[in-house]
């Protein structure tokens, strides 16, 4: 059981590492929003799942630890509802203010 917990939390940290690198290196506001919205939510869900399994294993499946497990599951549900909504709100706001998209072409030449 300990192995499963360590694997889950390490996987969550790996995805969050991807989010952090994406936030630093991606060129445009829209692309950074992709990195933030998806990587953040998934890594949170995996890490919290690992913590929930750990606490249930530590408490020897008693009533109190089942309650804490259910509370942690409800946090995962709330993050799944709230965080993508916030990402949608960001991209909507960015589009409304007319933020330009990054393109791969050089500035000088434009296609006729």
């Amino acid at each position, binding site marked *: 059981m*300990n192995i499963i917990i360590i694997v889950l939390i390490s996987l969550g940290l790996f995805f969050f590492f991807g*989010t952090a690198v994406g936030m630093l290196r991606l060129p445009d506001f829209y692309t950074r929003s992709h990195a*933030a919205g998806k990587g*953040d939510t998934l890594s*949170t869900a995996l890490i919290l799942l690992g913590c929930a399994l750990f606490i249930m294993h530590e408490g020897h499946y008693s009533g109190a630890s089942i309650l804490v497990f259910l509370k942690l599951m409800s946090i995962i549900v*709330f993050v799944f509802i709230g965080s993508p909504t*916030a990402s949608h709100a*960001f991209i909507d706001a960015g589009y*409304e203010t007319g933020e330009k998209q990054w393109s791969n072409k050089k500035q000088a030449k434009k296609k006729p």
Partner: protein
Amino acid sequence: MIELFKLFGFILLALIALVFIRAIKGPTAIDRLICVNIIGTKSIVLLVFMGIIFKRLDMFVDIAIGYGLLNFIASIAAAKFYQHNKTLRPESGDDS
């Protein structure tokens, strides 16, 4: 096992510091808003880690639920602000 959670918490904090560089650099205000949202979500995870390290998780999980519910109110408020005020950078161009 508890030592391992301290290590995980430290790695998580180091990654949050990396995301924070974007909050410092980010040319537009919505970049900073995205970083604040990420810091909020990871604060939930850090609160649970601290609960496990202090061996009193049943106390700390209530704060984590509260954070999970309140995290995106500020994001939605700021996003609605930009729907009304249609400029992303303020006028009379001074550096942000």
